[in-house]
């Protein structure tokens, strides 16, 4: 049973293409979500949401015409289609009858989160709070957040596509503040956080979900011992999991084909070039089972896939949605994503990561005389057009004589994506993918960021040490 009758979908497309166009599309969505948090020992901010709506897009040449409406009533759908059609002037109409509706190969959900009673979710938050507080007396604040969401989408287009996907995501986050009363220059206060999430159900939290809380507490407590970060150009070993945000920001965004085609990316015109040492391979993989950034199909109905973007150091592919793929005469790589029915799709990463190598993390660290071990980042920012990036290190350590020594605070990594990629000189085998939200053009989408431990020969570290 579809949310919109295929016969109505066909009429909406016909109406949208009344004044022509190369592609007409109807995107239908039902979104349900629930979120709950715990702060200061209290369960608070329960929120439940239910939204339904649709959008209509007509593509003509390089232009997209778009409109959306809340609700799925026939009148509303036809009205938005007619209003989009008003804006289009074209003598082309290529419309094919809709094919049979094709549900996407979904990701398994063992325990539907909406079937778990709210009290169990509250209990999970409380046990995370207990575990974090048990980590040490200096833990003074614990915040735990739980969120679940289900998005059912249907996509119809004038190429005859009729596809659907049913997406469930769950996520648990913990943030811990630790405080030590200091002598002299006042108290030290530090924070640590960790997250577990996926394109999966509540089963994700069946096994030791509280480990997330313990890890967040450990990070905050460790930072209480931190010394000021050094400043200068240093070798950097970047941790697995969330360390992959460096690849996401400094390389991945530059491979999104909208930026490439506008030559707003340092990677434009570099296809086939050796950008990294042999042995360095990276993927964008939207079909990796249960992973946070995975879907069955993208938000234009293209099945998700694993795309090799860097193969043995060579740049081999960009990331495409339908319209940018057409401009380059290639197939979409299944990267046409959107935040909701209220947004136009654009090329976005799914789960982006470095393929595992042969080394161990210890070997990578042992090869550094004096450097920095960046375990995790608090966030980062990149200018895709130049590749310049900045990352705040949320958990980092000094490396001295091949060994990890004191934790550091206040360190920032500054550099350029293309230079950093060329400077990758070691990759470990311990691949892990973490859960992030990626913002672009005002849209937030879940994106998996990951990698094994990676060593970069030299990066600028902006520290706080005098």
């Amino acid at each position, binding site marked *: 049973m579809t949310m919109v009758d295929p016969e109505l979908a066909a009429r909406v497309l016909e109406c949208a293409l009344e004044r022509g166009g190369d592609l007409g599309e109807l995107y239908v969505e039902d979104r349900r979500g629930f979120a709950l948090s715990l702060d200061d020992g209290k369960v608070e901010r329960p929120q439940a949401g239910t939204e339904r709506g649709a959008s209509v897009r007509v593509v003509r040449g390089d232009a997209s015409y778009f*409109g959306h*409406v809340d609700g799925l009533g026939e009148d509303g759908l036809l009205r938005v289609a007619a209003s989009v059609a008003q*804006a289009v002037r074209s003598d082309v109409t290529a419309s094919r009858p809709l094919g049979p509706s094709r549900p996407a190969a979904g990701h398994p959900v063992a325990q539907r989160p909406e079937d778990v009673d709210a009290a169990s979710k509250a209990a999970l938050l409380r046990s995370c709070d207990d575990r974090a507080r048990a980590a040490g007396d200096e833990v003074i604040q614990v915040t735990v957040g739980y969120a679940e969401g289900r998005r059912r989408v249907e996509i119809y287009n004038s190429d005859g596509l009729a596809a659907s996907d049913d997406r469930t995501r769950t996520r648990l986050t913990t943030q811990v503040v630790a405080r030590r009363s200091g002598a002299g220059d006042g108290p030290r206060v*530090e924070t640590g956080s960790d997250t577990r999430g996926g394109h999966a159900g509540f089963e994700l939290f069946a096994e030791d979900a509280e480990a997330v809380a313990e890890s967040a507490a450990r990070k905050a407590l460790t930072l209480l011992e931190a010394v000021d970060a050094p400043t200068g150009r240093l070798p950097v070993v970047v941790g697995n999991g969330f360390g992959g945000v460096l690849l996401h920001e400094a390389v991945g965004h530059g491979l999104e084909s909208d930026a490439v085609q506008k030559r707003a990316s340092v990677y434009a015109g570099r296809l086939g070039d050796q950008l990294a040492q042999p042995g360095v391979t990276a993927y964008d993989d939207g079909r990796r089972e249960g992973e946070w950034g995975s879907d069955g199909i993208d938000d234009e109905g293209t099945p998700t896939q694993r795309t090799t973007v860097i193969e043995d150091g060579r740049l081999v592919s960009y990331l495409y949605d339908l319209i940018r793929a057409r401009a380059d005469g290639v197939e979409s790589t299944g990267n046409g994503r959107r935040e909701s029915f209220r947004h136009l799709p654009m090329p976005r990463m799914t789960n982006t990561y470095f393929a595992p190598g042969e080394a161990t993390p210890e070997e990578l660290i042992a090869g550094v005389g004096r450097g920095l071990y960046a375990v995790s980042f608090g966030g*980062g*920012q990149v200018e895709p057009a130049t590749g310049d990036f*900045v990352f705040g290190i949320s958990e980092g350590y000094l490396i001295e004589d091949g060994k990890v020594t004191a934790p550091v605070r206040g360190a920032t990594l500054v550099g350029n994506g293309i230079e950093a990629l060329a400077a990758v000189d070691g990759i470990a085998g311990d691949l892990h993918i973490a859960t992030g939200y990626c913002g672009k053009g005002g849209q937030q989408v879940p994106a998996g960021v990951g990698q094994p431990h990676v060593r970069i020969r030299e990066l600028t570290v902006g520290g706080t040490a005098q």
Partner: protein
Amino acid sequence: MTLEDLAQAGVEAALAAGASDAEGWCEESVSREIRVYNGAVESLSDAGGRGIGIRAFLEGRSGYAYGTDLGEQGIRALGAAAHASAAISDPDEHAGLPAEFGVTPVPGLESAEMAEWTTERKIELALAVERAARSREGISQVEQAVFSDEESSAAIANSRGFSAAYSASQAWAYASAFAGEGDDLMTGIGIDLGRHPGELDPDAIGAEAADRALALKGARQPESRRCPVVLDAFVAASFAGFIGSMLSADAVQRGRSLFAGREGEVVAEPSFVLVDDGRDPGGPGSAPFDGEGSATRRTPLIDGGRLAGYLYDARTARKDGRSSTANAGRRSYRTPPVVGTTNLLIEPGDATLDELLAQAGDGLYVTDVAGLHSGVNPVSGTFSVGATGRLIAGGELGRPVREITIASDLVGMLRAVAAIGSESRWVPLAGSVKAVPLLIGEMAVSGS
């Protein structure tokens, strides 16, 4: 049914489900966004949205539900969901509706001239922005030029008998321009806003984007140094926005702010004044009432160098034994109110930008910072953020620089403010801030 009727229906639905107190917030908006590229329309979006959020209270417990189904059954289901979610939260003696409600008239929130602007004219405006940027010599490309506007209405109703509504209009345009090619490429943005498209100056927006990019052309990483730093209005606005978020009583009460327990302390140079003003007619964050029905007002935050107060909603105010400052913000009907800034204003000083540069002598002029939210420790205030800009040599702008970080701590920086610029402007990049350039006596700048 009007929006106020719908909000009232939300209140009744939650009360019928068993809530002891309830509030309905209903919104409706129509918006357009036009992106142009290379002299042609790249995308044209027309969006209409309508939804409701219901807050239910149950003897100190609170819950929230939102949705797009505004039919009788839909609202009834949301009222029940809000009540059910309240039942699982822990009681909070301070939770609840505000003690007082009200409306502050804000003239000119809505412009009738909006109606005179056809889609064709708006496309023309976006194209004019692009042309203005591209016509500057040395601009290699205008990556995007965007026009966007919105007409929105919001209504609130609650179980204490208060209800009110307002409408507002807003138009923005911005451009992102590139100067140089390949490894030497640098970018710049230009932006302006108003209550209707006629208040936007397309030539000025395009020229600003181009000038900001051209000023950075050929930027290189400089050597590390400690020196005076001039923050331009965009950068000063970014810092002010971050400081504003740290002045939320919620962040303070939860021990997540460097300003906790420092009311009345000297936290800035005496001439530095920071105010939150929810009724400034020009401010994009202005409204007659906040997200829970408190009348908006002007709240001094840093005055005479001292921390003058925090931003409160009803709950945090009750906890501190104060009155709400009407800072219960609503991002949309999809989120319950949270404490936030309305419009932040840095009070202008009397120095022109040239005077600030002259006073700096040899230093750094920063035109962009990156990574503010990851690079600042909110509790200690220490920060290290990425920056681009120009060196200042002999009191004048020198060579462009990139790949640097500037480091200090927020209070240390505010106390080192050596002069305050006179040229103020709205910077609607992250929140709404009316900012001026600032000269900071000394900061650590790290490069190579």
